[in-house]
């Protein structure tokens, strides 16, 4: 779990795995998920092993999630927006999603 040192930023509602949750203005999607206690944000397409954000700078591709129906997005690079639907990337992406 990560804790916010400062609670001033505007709350942003979004959903993770269909559940209504909240991040903050200025969060990346990955930061918001980590602040909510979600360390495992994908299952790999090779072995299905759970993974989560590792580098937070767009390099490692371990924070891949599905955002608004589009798979394999780098959660650490996508700024959180209100109303986003975020899901774990489970295995290989499906063409068209």
């Amino acid at each position: 779990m990560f804790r916010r040192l400062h609670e001033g930023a505007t709350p942003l509602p979004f959903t993770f795995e269909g559940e209504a949750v909240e991040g903050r203005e200025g969060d990346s999607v990955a930061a918001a998920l980590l602040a909510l206690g979600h360390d495992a944000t994908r299952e790999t397409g090779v072995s299905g092993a759970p993974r989560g954000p590792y580098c937070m700078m767009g390099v490692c591709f371990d924070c891949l999630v599905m955002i608004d129906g589009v798979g394999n997005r780098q959660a650490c690079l996508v700024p959180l927006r209100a109303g986003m639907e975020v899901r774990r990337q489970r295995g290989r992406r499906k063409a068209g999603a």
Partner: protein
Amino acid sequence: MKRLSDVASLREGYDLAIIGAGPAGMAAAATAGGRGLSVLLLDENPGLGGQVHRGVEASPLAAVPALANVPGAGRALAQAAARAEVEFLPGATVWHLDAARRIGVSAGGAARMVVARRVIIATGALERPMPIPGWTLPGVMSVGAAQTLLKAQGLVPEGRVVMAGSGPLLWLYAAQLVAAGHPPALLLDTTPRANWRAALPHLWDFLRSPYAAKGAGLLARVRRGVRVVSGVASLAIRAAPGGLEVAWPGGTARADRVLLHQGVVPQTNLAQAAGCELAWDKAQACFVPRTDGWGETNLPGIAIAGDTAGIAGAEAAEASGHVAALAALHALGALDGAARDAAAAPHQAARARWRRGRAFLDALYLPAPGFRVAPDEAIACRCEEVTGAALREAVRLGATGPNQAKAFLRCGMGPCQGRMCMLTVVETIVAARGVAPGTIKPLRIRPPVKPVTLAEIAAMDSTEAERAAVEGR
């Protein structure tokens, strides 16, 4: 600074394109702006700062008294860049660069190709991989990642935090956690004791460098507030009920989060894709692009500034950004040779000052071979889940370097394009073969250096000949 919001607002061509808005890129923009040239600054992040000054423009730490000085370091530079007469496209992924200085840029799901008369690559550094068993488990992150969360979102890890590794950033972040009132439970220092012998000859230069003053208090502050175990020679992490367990010779510890770090290395993928030559740097144990004093590479019109040209730290990166921009201004006819040299002199002196102490840090914090080579059971390539054992099997089959190993095992074929594995693969192969890393060429990198959609690539122009090469059957 004119902030652009999409690739549609880019011009077709620029006099100068600067790729990366960290200290080197911001400095280059500040120097190059306002000289009557068209200058484009590109960065993947939403704002200026790069990784080291992440969040500098709107830091959540400004409201946290104990850490309010953290964003201070890059503020003046960011303000100088923001005042500069340049165009800045944040949130932009640069996925193509070639010797003709064509730059493939993608933002918000749309791509464009722009051409620049001069290019300064300032893609910075990334953390050296630390291929220990369990480093892919959820809950294990790099120290740099945790610090990004601190700088950009004001987030600190809760629960039992174990930090492990070596290098200045490890101690800096530990000190920041101490200051924030959330000290880590344990710091496992993997700095090899034998490194002191190699570092001592550089101690005098270090003590005269600005690094000494910066670093001295840091270690003391951390040691006062955190349990530190020194001389840790190996590490493994495994999942345990309700969390993680870290094991080292002589101890184990439960952890809610493990943060790993063992220094930084140049982020060279874009330079490699363009065709810049690299050479193995023994002192830093990584590949470094060949550049001259102005940052010029083997490719005409393409220069490299900052840590991409060899790790020297943020201050030296800033100085080299100014120097590279002055060289570009001269090449573009905006500055004569004498003016360039005069303007560059103070920056070159500053760069030398900061570099002076670097040899000591390089020698002291060079990770032990055991932390650079993947053990059998550890994953070397995170994307394709290739282990140290698989790499040794590939060597047995005849692989002599990372390119053949990639063909055998797919290591380096995933979306990260070898960023997270190339050094581990190279060091594991040379250790298995008993040869020096300098005898091996790096992984061949081709565009796109970051994933872009097929539709974005399809939107690029083709000449008649290029179309005929595909359709002329």
